[in-house]
């Protein structure tokens, strides 16, 4: 049995019959210790998928199983890095992280908790800003706080929704390594949502494209057979890397083109409007 399993998931927002299905027939299983990346276009339902897994929303049909148990709500075992950072603006950087750590380790003493906070804030190189409030930080700094907050809880499974989107290449690279480091240390499980194929290839064991919604469903998976630890510069010469990268990008371009033609067809629709609809005017 897989560590995380999604069986025939359908998700519709709202209750009406005519509500569009955001996700259709999603099947996914992740083994313990695996690092899986999901790439997809904007609006395709990636955040919806993440929220189903972390327990913030429930599927309309189908089931999410975590270690064999249906997911009934959120859990400290699954840490989340939100796409929109979601820091609490009335708390400082340190307090934002502290609040999470305190919930995750209720038995630890105050001093221990503060030490953990300091460690993780240092890890995202925000020690000089530890007493600042989110409004005094840049977008990238906020994103790093959000990373620190999620990782400091030491979750068994790390769920990341485009966690490094707002960062420059250098910081991004550093944080990718930090995340890989933490993931590798205790052989945790990770799910990464990203729009950057290279990031996916560098970090993940498998990349799965999410086909654009509505009715988004998962495409065929691409295995990344590159030895760890991976090295960015060496990887560029790896024939395996080139092949996988091209295959994924080709696939994404294909579904992108499909979407365009579908959109074009949709514009030709007017003469198909029902009779009584026209009669109303």
């Amino acid at each position, binding site marked *: 049995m897989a560590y995380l399993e999604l069986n025939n998931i359908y998700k519709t927002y709202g209750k009406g019959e005519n509500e569009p299905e955001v996700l259709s027939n999603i099947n996914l299983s992740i083994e313990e210790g695996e690092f899986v990346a999901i790439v997809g276009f904007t609006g395709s339902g990636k955040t919806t998928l993440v929220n189903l897994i972390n327990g913030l929303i429930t599927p309309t049909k189908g089931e999410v199983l975590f270690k064999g148990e249906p997911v009934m709500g959120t859990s400290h075992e699954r840490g989340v890095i939100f796409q929109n950072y979601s820091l*609490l603006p009335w708390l400082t950087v340190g307090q934002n992280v502290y609040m999470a750590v305190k919930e995750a380790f209720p038995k630890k003493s105050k001093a221990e908790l503060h030490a953990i906070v300091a460690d993780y804030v240092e890890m995202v190189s925000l020690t000089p800003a530890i007493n600042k409030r989110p409004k005094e930080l840049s977008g990238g700094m906020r994103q790093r706080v959000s990373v620190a907050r999620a990782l400091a809880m030491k979750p068994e499974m790390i769920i990341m929704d485009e966690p490094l989107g707002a960062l420059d290449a250098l910081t991004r690279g550093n944080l990718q390594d930090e995340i890989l480091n933490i993931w590798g240390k205790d052989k945790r499980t990770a799910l990464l949502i990203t729009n950057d194929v290279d990031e996916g290839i560098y970090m993940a064991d498998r990349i799965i494209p999410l086909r654009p919604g509505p009715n988004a469903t998962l495409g065929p998976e691409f295995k990344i057979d590159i030895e760890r630890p991976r090295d960015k510069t060496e990887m560029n010469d790896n024939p395996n890397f080139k092949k996988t990268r091209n295959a994924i990008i080709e696939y994404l371009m294909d579904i992108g083109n499909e979407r365009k033609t579908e959109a074009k067809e949709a514009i030709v629709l007017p003469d198909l409007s029902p009779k009584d609809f026209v009669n109303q005017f």
Partner: protein
Amino acid sequence: MKQSITLGKVTNFVGLGFLSTLKDLFTGKLEREDLKNVLRKTVVPLASMLLFIGLWHLGAKSLYNIEAEFKIEKALTDQGPEAADALRSCIASGDSSCQPNTLPSPSQVWDSYKSLLRDHNIIKADKAAFIEKTAVLNEKRLAEGKDAITYTGRPSFVDQIFRSLKTVFAGFLLALFIAVPLGIFIGLSPTLKSAFNWFIQIFKPVSPVVWYLLVFMIVKTLLIDSSEDSSFTISFISVGFCSMWATLVNTAMGVATVDKDYINVAKVLKLGPFQKIFKVVLPSSLPLIFTGLKITLSVAWMVLIAIELLAQSPGLGLFVWEEFQNGANDSNAKIIVAMFVIGIIGFLLDRIMLTIQNWVSFDKTEGI
């Protein structure tokens, strides 16, 4: 340099930004394009104030003339030409016994203001003398277990102001302690919301006078055994009930509409109900709660005057009413002084609340 920055920050913060511009004007630190701004923020209000006083002066004068003509005309028809002439010269002489009773001019109001201050100083001195005189006696009385003798003289205008402030703060605190907790419960629970909604909708628009009467009916009976003067109790409770609605509604709304992202954080961190309320829900609704409290305080101050008047509770409202009843020569001018004092205090209270509000509020987009 550093100091001027902090001053600028502070004055901007409390909404008196023009003060720092004014300071820049005098310290000569002004850019060319700032000049227009300075003119707009200092000269224009001053000019409009002068214009206001001028118009008031002219208006008061013409009202005075209308009233005087009418009086003389009346004397002519009722008592004949001699009486009319006597009245005309009496009015012209400025004798206070025959002055037309109408809107006082700015200078009369200013004179009344000074006379009220003088009166206050006299009463203050009187009070100090009284306390000194009774100090020894009071000590003895206290030692014997008797009540001390207190000053029972007439309160001065300034005393009335402080009594009004006391009533308004008591009322405001009452509103705060009822409306904020209740608002939190209503905002958290849709069931409580539907239980209370009709109640809020019906009682919110009720006028201060009716609130006063309602509170009077209840408090009078409750305090039936007590010999103490219940007018203060009745008036501050009425003020509280009149003014608490804005806070109640805003608190409930703030608590009910916490940003979904913050709720998601609370869920992912698995905060307990208490933690969730105190660490997430309340901080995120503080700005709205304070907006409500600001409205509450200004409503409280506004209805206070009417309620003091009805309750015969000492304060500015009673002062205005007594002056109106007493109809002395400078009563109208004193009423106008009270009007300005009420307005200025209301403005200051509003500024204080605005400052606190700026202090606790945050930009909704900050964490996102």
